């Protein structure tokens, strides 16, 4: 397996060994290089996004109309929230394949709650959805952290189990938009100053997660765990507890996404969220998060989500045969990981032997 790219929190130990014993400038330069690379990566995706939008808008100016932009933002909200949750898990060298099923469960639970008691306040339902998601995430996290079993396998299993539970609960029933309180549905379409309310949820989640991963030691420890689990363990990081927490967070965010899905789409059946997991991982990978953990940011993942959704909307407008869309996403993923690899190889060379400066 390839060695993981260096973590963003500083130069890897090997460099420190080779550096001159008393040159404090070295680590600072290294950190600067790392941070610049990260900025380059996120700037890269933003540039790709801007380019895509610009090209499409010149072909069809309606692409930038208020309605169209609102649709793009709304469409990427749910994927972005899922991508943020997935990033938290992926940086610790795990993966959560069950997010689609958790979303489906939470969405149907939301609908069922409203059907049972239409006067329930919206915040209560939000909490219920998030709570349900957190419970599912806790199941994942407990299995993975306690039994130290591979996340890929466990979340593949819970993908099936949660989906099966969702099917059994829903069995052919469908909750229609007519069954939901209008105030809740309005949440799905309302805008404040042009920005959809749902997108504000996503932005709050994004900023909160970004701050947590950057400024809180438990957040940064996730990166350490992803870079080198054994070293993290030896350094005294409570790996099991952190990984458990990461999965609870991913589950909770998937639950939130489920509630927002119910608000946006109104009509819910047992198939909500089916197949989302691959899109989420695609968004995360395109956004620059290393699949083996240790590096990447939630901001990148969120932009990756927006980029993927925009491609879906832009291709038909550009007159490209929509059958090319999936292939385009595939090419994008391959390009993204190729770029990441090239960047991190260059970075490693710089940190290992480059003489000072950036």
């Amino acid at each position, binding site marked *: 397996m390839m060695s993981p790219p260096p973590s963003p929190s500083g130069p890897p130990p090997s460099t420190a060994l080779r550096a001159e014993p008393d040159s404090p400038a070295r680590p600072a330069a290294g950190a600067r290089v790392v941070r610049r690379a990260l900025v380059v990566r996120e700037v890269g995706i933003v540039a790709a996004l801007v380019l895509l939008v610009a090209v499409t808008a010149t072909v069809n100016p*309606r692409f930038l109309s208020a309605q169209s932009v609102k649709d793009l933002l709304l469409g990427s909200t749910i994927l972005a929230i899922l991508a943020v949750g997935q990033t938290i898990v992926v940086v610790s060298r795990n993966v959560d394949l069950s997010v689609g099923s958790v979303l489906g469960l939470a969405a149907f639970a939301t609908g069922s709650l409203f059907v049972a008691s239409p006067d329930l306040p919206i915040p209560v339902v939000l909490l219920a959805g998030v709570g349900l998601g957190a419970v599912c995430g806790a199941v994942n996290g407990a299995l993975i952290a306690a039994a130290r079993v591979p996340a890929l396998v466990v979340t593949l299993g819970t993908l099936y189990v949660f989906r099966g539970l969702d099917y059994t609960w829903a069995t052919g*029933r469908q909750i229609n*938009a007519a069954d939901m309180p209008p105030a809740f549905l309005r949440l799905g*379409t309302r805008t404040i100053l042009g920005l959809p309310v749902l997108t504000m949820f996503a932005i709050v989640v994004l900023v909160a997660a970004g701050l947590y991963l950057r400024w809180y030691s438990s957040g940064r420890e996730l990166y350490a765990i992803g870079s080198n689990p054994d070293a993290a363990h030896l350094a005294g990081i409570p790996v099991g507890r952190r990984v458990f927490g990461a999965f609870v967070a991913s589950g909770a965010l998937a639950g939130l996404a489920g509630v927002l899905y119910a608000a946006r789409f109104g*009509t819910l059946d*047992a198939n909500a969220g089916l197949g989302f997991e691959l899109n989420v991982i695609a968004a995360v990978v395109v956004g620059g998060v290393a699949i083996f953990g240790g590096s990447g940011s939630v901001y990148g993942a969120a932009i990756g989500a927006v980029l993927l959704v925009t491609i879906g*909307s832009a291709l038909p407008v550009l007159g490209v045969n929509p059958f090319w869309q999936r292939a385009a996403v595939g090419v994008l993923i391959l390009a993204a990981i190729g770029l990441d690899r090239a960047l991190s190889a260059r970075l490693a060379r710089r940190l290992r032997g480059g003489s000072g400066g950036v």
Partner: protein
Amino acid sequence: MRAGTRGARVIVAALALLTLAATACSEQSPGGGATPTAGAGTIKEGLKITFLPKQVNNPYFDTSDNKGGKVAVEEVKGVYAQTGPSEASPSAQVSYINTLSQQQVDVIVVSANDKDAICGALQEARQSGAKVVTYDSDTNPTCRDLFINQATAQGIATSQIKLISEAIGADGGEIAILSATANATNQNAWIEMMKTELAKPEHAKLKLVATVYGDDDDQKSFAEAQGLLAKYPNLKGIISPTTVGVAAAARYLSGSTYKGKVQLTGLGTPNQMRAYIKDGTCKAFALWNPADLGYLAAYAGAALASGIITGKEGDTFTAGKLGEYTVGANATVLLGDPFTFNASNIDQFDF
């Protein structure tokens, strides 16, 4: 490797192989369900009739099978079951058809995910004595005994074009179709008829600019409706002849700036569309009662299995409270004409 473990493994392997060999190499057990008595006028009791929709977690089929088919099967004192895959894939359906032919059911009522892919399995089922009735979405006529058509392609096409034309008004304009899956037999037949209908002089002002596919998936249909509006600034109307598609398109239009400006019609259920009729997003839409479809399909299958009809043109049978039906060309039974729902009658229905 310890000898004990290896020995145990060999024994277990041998056991497994022996078991498989013993069951596999014996004579094939003869198939056969209830043999129909020739010319009898009454439906046999105890017929096993199983509904196999495109996918089980679909509310449309929940209505047609559990609220229609089940009622009919209980009326003829048969044994009702509904089974099927959770995803609308042809290969998954084949697996269930194979199970049904092993379970020796008398009648399989199936809505096909693909016209040809399930044919082989259906033929094997018929050889085992099961009667095959398709409903909602047909297969190749050679592999089924009867097809219960909800409405003629002509009837649906005429009704849809008429509704969108009335909604848009005399000035006409560009229209688009939001369909289900691209391989669905019924959808393609209806779309072809709609194009023929549009070619008529009275619809000269209507122009079909696009056909997109929502795959009967709510979110995808929603996104496709969105895409249509983004791509065609002069779009005046959308026809969506699928309950999932029309509901998704209505929901999108209702929350967008296009509400009321871009007309919508299609085949939808009253419960799903009620809110949008009332808020003006959609003026009128059509459908039939899916429960009636399932009901008729069950009775047709029972009549087949009892020998009352053989599926050739001109055969007649009674379908409980729906009355008498005649088999038409190509072993097809027609349910009736589509029914139009609008603001004046939407509240009378509950499905």
